[in-house]
C-alpha cells in the first residue's frame, strides 16, 4: 500500500505519463506517526494553495505573453475534462480520497507545466519559483492526506488519474493546456479550501 503512494509522492517533473497506481494489499504504515492536527495542517495547506492560486494563474498567463492575457476565457478557461471530481458535501474520508486524487492529478500536471515553462520561458524565474513552491505544497498536502487516510481510515491505496502528457504537443498547446490547468486549479482549490 505505501509503495504506490511513495511513488506518487516522488513523482518527477517531466514524467510524461501518470504513475500507475497499483493496489497493494499491504498494511498501511508510515515512517513515523502522523501528527495529531493533520486536518488543521491540511486546511492550512489548502488555504495556502488557494491563496497563491490566483497569483500563479496570473503569473502564468502573463508570462506566456499574447494572446493569453487578453483571451483568458478562450485560452485559459477551466476546460479540463478529466479533472478528478470533488464533492464538498461528502464525508471526510470521501473528501480526503477525492482530494488525494485531485492533488495527485495537479501534482503531475504541475510537473509537466514546470518542465515545459523552463523550456518555453526560461527567464520567467518568478513563475518557475511559484510553480515549484506550489508543487512543494502539493507534495506536503499529499503526504498529510495520505497520512490522515492511512492513520485514521487505514486507506492504504487510492486509485488516481493523471492529465494528458504534453511532451509531444506544440508550444502553444503546452501553454494553453498549462493555462487551462492553472485556471482549473484556481477554481477547484477555492472549492476544496472552503470544504
Amino acid at each position, binding site marked *: 500500500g*505505501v509503495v504506490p*503512494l*511513495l511513488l506518487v*509522492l*516522488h513523482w518527477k517533473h517531466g514524467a510524461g505519463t501518470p504513475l500507475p497506481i497499483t493496489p497493494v494489499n499491504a498494511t498501511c504504515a*508510515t*515512517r*513515523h*506517526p*502522523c*501528527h495529531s492536527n493533520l486536518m*488543521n*495542517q*491540511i486546511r*492550512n*495547506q489548502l*488555504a*495556502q494553495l488557494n*491563496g*497563491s492560486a490566483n497569483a500563479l494563474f496570473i503569473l502564468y498567463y502573463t508570462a506566456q505573453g499574447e494572446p493569453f492575457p487578453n483571451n483568458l476565457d478562450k485560452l485559459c478557461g477551466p476546460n479540463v475534462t478529466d479533472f478528478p471530481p470533488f464533492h464538498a458535501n461528502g464525508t471526510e474520508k470521501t473528501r480526503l480520497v477525492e482530494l488525494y486524487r485531485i492533488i495527485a492529478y495537479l501534482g503531475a500536471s504541475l510537473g509537466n507545466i514546470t518542465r515545459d515553462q523552463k523550456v518555453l520561458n526560461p527567464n520567467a524565474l518568478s513563475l518557475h519559483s511559484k510553480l*515549484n*513552491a506550489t508543487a*512543494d*505544497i502539493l*507534495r*506536503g*498536502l499529499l*503526504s*498529510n492526506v*495520505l*497520512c490522515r487516510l492511512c492513520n485514521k481510515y487505514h486507506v492504504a491505496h487510492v486509485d488516481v488519474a493523471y492529465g494528458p502528457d504534453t511532451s509531444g504537443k506544440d508550444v502553444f498547446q503546452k501553454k494553453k493546456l498549462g493555462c487551462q490547468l492553472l485556471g482549473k486549479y484556481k477554481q477547484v482549490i477555492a472549492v476544496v479550501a472552503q470544504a
Partner: protein
Amino acid sequence: MLTLQTWIVHVLFIFFTTESVGELLEPCGYIKPESPVVQLGSNFTAVCVLKEKCMDYFHVNASYIFWKTNHLTVPKEQYTTINKTASSVTFTDTSSLNTQLTCNIRTFGQIDQNVYGIRIISGLPPEKPKNLSCIVNEGKKMMCQWDPGRETYLETNFTLKSEWATEKFADCKTKRDTPTSCTVDYSPVYFVNTEVWVEAENALGKVTSDHINFDPVDKVKPNPPHNLSVSNSEELSSILKLTWINSSIQDFIRLKYNIQYRTRDSSVWNQIPPEDTASTRSSFTVQDLKPFTEYVFRIRCMKEDGKGFWSDWSEEASGITYEDRPSKAPSFWYKIEPSHTHGYRSVQLIWKTLPPFEANGKILDYEVTLTRWKSRLQNYTVNETKWTVNITNDRYIATLTVRNLVGKSDAAVLTIPAYDFKATRPVRDLKAFPKDNMLWVEWTAPNESVNKYILEWCVLSDKSPCIPDWQQEDGLVHRTYLRGNLAESKCYLITVTPVFADGPGSPESIKAYLKQAPPSKGPTVRTKKVGKNEAVLEWDQLPVDVQNGFIRNYTIFYRTIIGNETAVNVDSSHTEYTLSSLTSDTLYMVRMAAYTDEGGKDGPEFTFTTPKFAQGEIEAIVVPVCLAFLLTTLLGVLFCFNKRDLIKKHIWPNVPDPSKSHIAQWSPHTPPRHNFNSKDQMYSDGNFTDVSVVEIEAANDKKPFPEDLKSLDLFKKEKISTEGHSSGIGGSSCMSSSRPSISSSDENESAQNTSGTVQYSTVVHSGYRHQVPSVQVFSRSESTQPLLDSEERPEDLQLVENTESSAGSFPRQQYFKQNCSQRDTSPDISHFERSKQVSSVNEEDFVRLKQQMSDISKPFEAGQMKMFQEISVADAFGPHTDGLVEGFETVGMEAAVDEGMPKSYLPQTVRRGGYMPQ
C-alpha cells in the same frame, strides 16, 4: 657469442638482485591489529607474529621480541610470549592520542632489528548530539543546529536526517567548518510535520540524537514588515499612524507584532503593548504622543501563536505629531540696567525659549504686557527672547505669553519692584554640589510663599567677564540642577533669587565646580625674608582660571642639595609661611604645590641661600669689639697721658742733638729774643726759670738787633734771680730732661752738672778760664741728637738721674715743655722736624749740598768746615739750600742763628781750645 654471454650474465644478475631485494623488503613479521583505533582509557593488546623464515635466518623466536612505543622500550612486564612465533603486549588505560608501536627483535645478541610497526590512534566515541533545533528563515531553506557533545579527538561525521511520515529526505552532511549545523537542500514545506535527527559517527561508534518532530511553520522566522511609514493627524496632536507591508508569509499564517517608538533625541525605545498588536495587521495608530514631537518607529513580527522566531526589526520610520498650544508659560526674568534719564530705569525683560516638548509647535512670537501701578496695560509683540524698555521708578507688573500656530500659552507674570524697593527674605542654607555629572543646587525656602526661583550662574575667570546664564524653577522646588552647558574645572558663581508676589527677594550666592581637577599651575613661591635659620616664604593666590577646584591646602617642599625633602602643609588661606630650623649658609630649594580635592600641582622650584650670620649678628660682634677697642685705646691714651712722663722716660728719653746745638753766650746784657716774649708772657709767674740765653758772637758782620739783645738781657736777669735752679742751657727737645745747670760762673758746678749730659757748655768766645772775655758768651747745644755716638750712654744715665730728680727739675721741664709745645704748635718747627729726617737723605743730595756750601765755608778752617757741612746737611730740608740762615730764622732764633752759624762750631773750637765736654 660473447655478446650473448654478457647478456645472460646481466639477466642473471638482475634476477638474483631482484630476488634478494624482495627478500630484504619482506618484513620479518607483522602486528595485529594493523590500524587500531583505541578508546581513551581502555586496554589495548597487540600481537607480533614472527615468520619462520626470519626466525631461522636470525636464529630467534618470540622470546626475543621487545616492544617500543614512540622509540621507548615497553617494560617486559607488559609482554606475553604466546608461542614460539608470537608475543603480545598489553597497554592499560591508554591516554596517548597517537602512539607509534613497533615490534623488535635482538639478533646475534646485540643488533636490534625492527620487525613491524603500527600507529595506534586513540579517541572517544561521539556523544549523543543535544539541543537539536531548527529554524526556517522565510524564503530560505531550513537550517538545524545542535550541540555535538564532548571532543572525540577523532574525525567525526554529523549527518542531519529528516523525513515526513511518508517520505524521507536526503541526508544533510555537515561541512568541515560548521560541524554543528546543517542547512537542508530542499525548500521547506509548511504544515507538514517533519522529523529531524542527527547522527554522529566516528571510528569508535555512531550515535543518534533524539528525534524532533515539528511543523516547519512553527520554526519560521518571518521576514520583517517593510515599507513602514508614519503619518500624523491634524485633528489629534497626540497620535501617529503607522502603515507597513507584511511579508508574504502572512498569506497563510497569522502574525503578531512588536511596535517600538522613541523620540528623535532619545535612545530608549518604548513599546506598544503587545496585546494591542497580537493579530495580523498592516497599520497601527499610536496614541498619547506629545505634540509637535518627532518619533521614530520600528516593527517586527512573528507567528501569531508565538511559535517560531521574531523577525528582524524593520527599518526605522519617523513622523512628527501635529502642533498644540504651548503647554507652559516660559521662564521670565528681568535685569535692571542703568539709565541716563532721570526718574526712569532701563529694564531688560528676558525669557527662555520653551523646549519643544512645551512649545508644542513652532513659536511664532511673544506677547509682553507691562502694567504700571493702577494704570492700563500696554501690549508688545516681540520676536526675540529679550526686550528692553524704559520704565519709571514705579512698580510694574509684566506678563509674557508665547504663541504658536495653534494658540497661546499661559501667561508668565513678573513683578518689577519700585526703585526704592529693598529686597529681603533670601533663601537659606544654599548649597551646590556635583552629582551624576550635573551641578546640583539645594536651598531652604524662605518662610514666605515663593512664586518661583531664579538661578543665575556664570564662570568666574580673570580673563573674561562673568556672563550669567539663568534658569527658572517652580516655587515648590528647593533642589535642582543647572541645565546649562557646564564645563569641568570651572568655578561657577551660582546665585539663587526667590521671587515673591511683590517682587524678587534677596539673592544668595555660592561657588561650585562641576568637577574639580588638579590646578593647572602650581603656586610660585619666593622668599620674602631670609634669615640665618629661617626664611619667610610668600606666594600669590592662584588665579581662578588655573585653580580648577577649591584650593584646599598648600604643601611646601624644601630641601638642601644633599638633604631629604621636607614637606610642610599650609592652609589655603595663607599666603606666606616661615620655614624655621634652617641651616645657615646653605642653599635651599623650595617648591610649592597647591591641592584641590582632585590632586595637586607643583609650582616652579625656587632656590635661596641662608646667610652665614643673622642680621645684626656682625654688628653685635663688631660694635662691642670696636667699643672695647676704643675703650681700651682711650684708657691707654689716658694712661699714657697720665703717665706720659714715666713712659717718656722709658721709651723716648730726651736726647739732645749735637748737630743742633748752639753755643750761646749767657750774657746778662744780651736782650732776650723776640720769640721768647710769648714764653715770658705765658710763664710770667716765674716758673720759667731755666732759660739759657745764648749770646753768640757772630762770625759774620751781622750784628744782633737791639731787641734781641734786650731779650737776652732779660733772660740774664731772670737767670740771676733764679740762680741755683737754672742750668743756663735747656734741652732742645721736650722729651729731653736736664738737670739744673749753672752758668759758666761756676765752672766746677757746671762741669758737674753737665758731666752727665755734656750737651751744654759755656763758651768764652775770646778765651777760657784765664781769659776773661769782655762779653760772656754762652753756647748751648739744642740738638736732640747725641753729640757723639760714644756719648749716648752717658745721656741714658742722665735720663735716669733726671727721673730721680724730676721734682727739682720741674721748672726746667716746663720750659722744655714750652719748647715742645711751641714746636708742636709752630709751623716753623716743621723745618726742625724735617731736619731730623736728614738721616734718610741720600748721599747724593748730601754731596750736592756740600758742594753748594763749600763756597760759603771757604773762609773757615778745616774743623769748622766740617761742622758746617753737618749743619748744612741738616738744613738741606729747608726751603732753600742756600738759605741756611733763613732756616734758623724760622726757628725764631734768627739773630742767634745768623750770627751763630759759625758759633755752632764752637765746640770744635773749644775742643781745640781745650774745653772737653764730659
